[in-house]
């Protein structure tokens, strides 16, 4: 049954990603974007055994402090979307807290910068 030719090629992953996500759909981008920050909920004492190893691992990763979704995905082997689906599920179940990314600093006025530059040039240049 297992001839030598059968070992030529590596088999794909045993557990397929759609099983890991339990067939759930992708979360909305505004709910969980690449730069959303995620951390473990503080009051969780005991984790239920029902969580899959992948979910346990995500909780482990998040337990040290806020991490971005992209960062978390980088630490797993799973496709980013799959990680997002799992994180959304864990957040819904209350194991994780998400924080919207820090708002981008407003760009400074270009004219003001030019004025400062010319002022500096006049003084030191």
């Amino acid at each position: 049954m297992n001839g030598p030719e059968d070992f030529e090629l590596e088999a794909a992953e045993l557990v397929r990603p759609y099983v890991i996500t339990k067939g759930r759909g992708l979360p909305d981008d505004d709910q969980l974007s690449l730069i959303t920050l995620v951390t473990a909920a503080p009051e969780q004492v005991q984790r239920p055994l029902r969580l899959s190893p992948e979910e346990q691992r995500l909780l482990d990763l998040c337990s040290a402090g806020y991490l971005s979704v992209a960062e978390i995905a980088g630490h797993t082997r799973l496709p980013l979307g799959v990680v997002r689906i799992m994180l959304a599920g864990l957040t819904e179940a209350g194991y994780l807290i998400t924080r919207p990314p820090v708002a981008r600093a407003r760009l400074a006025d270009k004219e003001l910068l030019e004025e400062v530059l010319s002022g500096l040039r006049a003084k030191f240049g």
Partner: protein
Amino acid sequence: MTEYIENPALWALVVLLLIVIAVVVRQRKAAMALRQEIAGLREYYSDLEHHYMQSVAAAQEQAEEATKTVLKSAMRTLQGLAAEQQLILSRLQTKHGESVILQDLLEIDHTNSQFGRRAQSIAVLCDGWLGRHRDNASVYDVVRSAQGRVRHFRRVEILSQVDFGISSRAVEPVALALAELLDNATSYSSPDTVVEINIRTVPKGVAIVVDDAGVGMNDEERARAERLLSSDRVKSVAGLGNPPQFGLAVIGVLSERFGFEVSVDSSSPYGGVRAVVLLPHELLTSMPEKKAPAPPMTRSSVPPPQPNGPEPVPASPTTTDGLPLRRRKRPMAIVPGSAPTPIASARSGAETAAIMGAFQRGTRSGRAARGDDADQTSSTRGSSSEGHEFS
């Protein structure tokens, strides 16, 4: 007395008697001969019949073998294609992980898995190829793999886990047999019910219990199922009926060949069928270690923090907090290390400066080594060790 002898009537009587005796004897002989002939013919006939049956059986067997061979090689091609497609899908899923396409890719992956399983089942009945080599895997992962091969996998719930693995040669057969059980369980129960899986350790090994909330089986079906699972099952592909019912026949072949037990003779608490797969200790291993996710990437990204080696160690116990799953802790330890605050506070300014200096010297010597490389290719090792001496 003499008058009697002279009586012609008497003579006539005697002659008649003699003739009758002769006729009777001859008839009897003839009958005996006929009887013998009949016996001979009968024997000949049964002989002939026997030969006929034998040759029919031989022809049937030959035809069966021929069918099997054809199916086997056809399935081999299909299985190969399905496996190849699965690898391509894995690659695509990683590549387009950020995109909305992922959703569709996952669905295609699901369909492909079912397709691969069908081909695999037919191959098993034809004594064919089971699939590519698998590493040892945890029982939980094998169950999930089986779950992924059936259409209604969302209705399957795994309620418990055990700390056991399945040895590599049994991974695929157990997954396939379980997938066939789950397929039966999900197709013979209503779409709004859940199929529960419980994994338990028992004295004989590990039992995987599948409960459905379907209508169950009547006695006739149960007898048929038992027959298919036992060794005197239908040996031929032709005897599977139309539409063919592969499931139990496949499970029967697999369990016999790989030495695990499957029974479907009890009822589930929900009224449906309870199927139990019993894996003996021979097929079990200790919990396999999870492959470290993307180890080359994480490791190459950490050389600078390596000098603070002891630091991840106190951090790792906080991450474990009594997890039932034994896994390699290294990749997890990296994360607390990469959190900015603890590192900054633990390192004095002088240390940081020393490390940065060492790093800079290292890169400089590395660049110098590359320059040398153009002249002499073998000097890389020497120059890199030189860099270590400096730091």
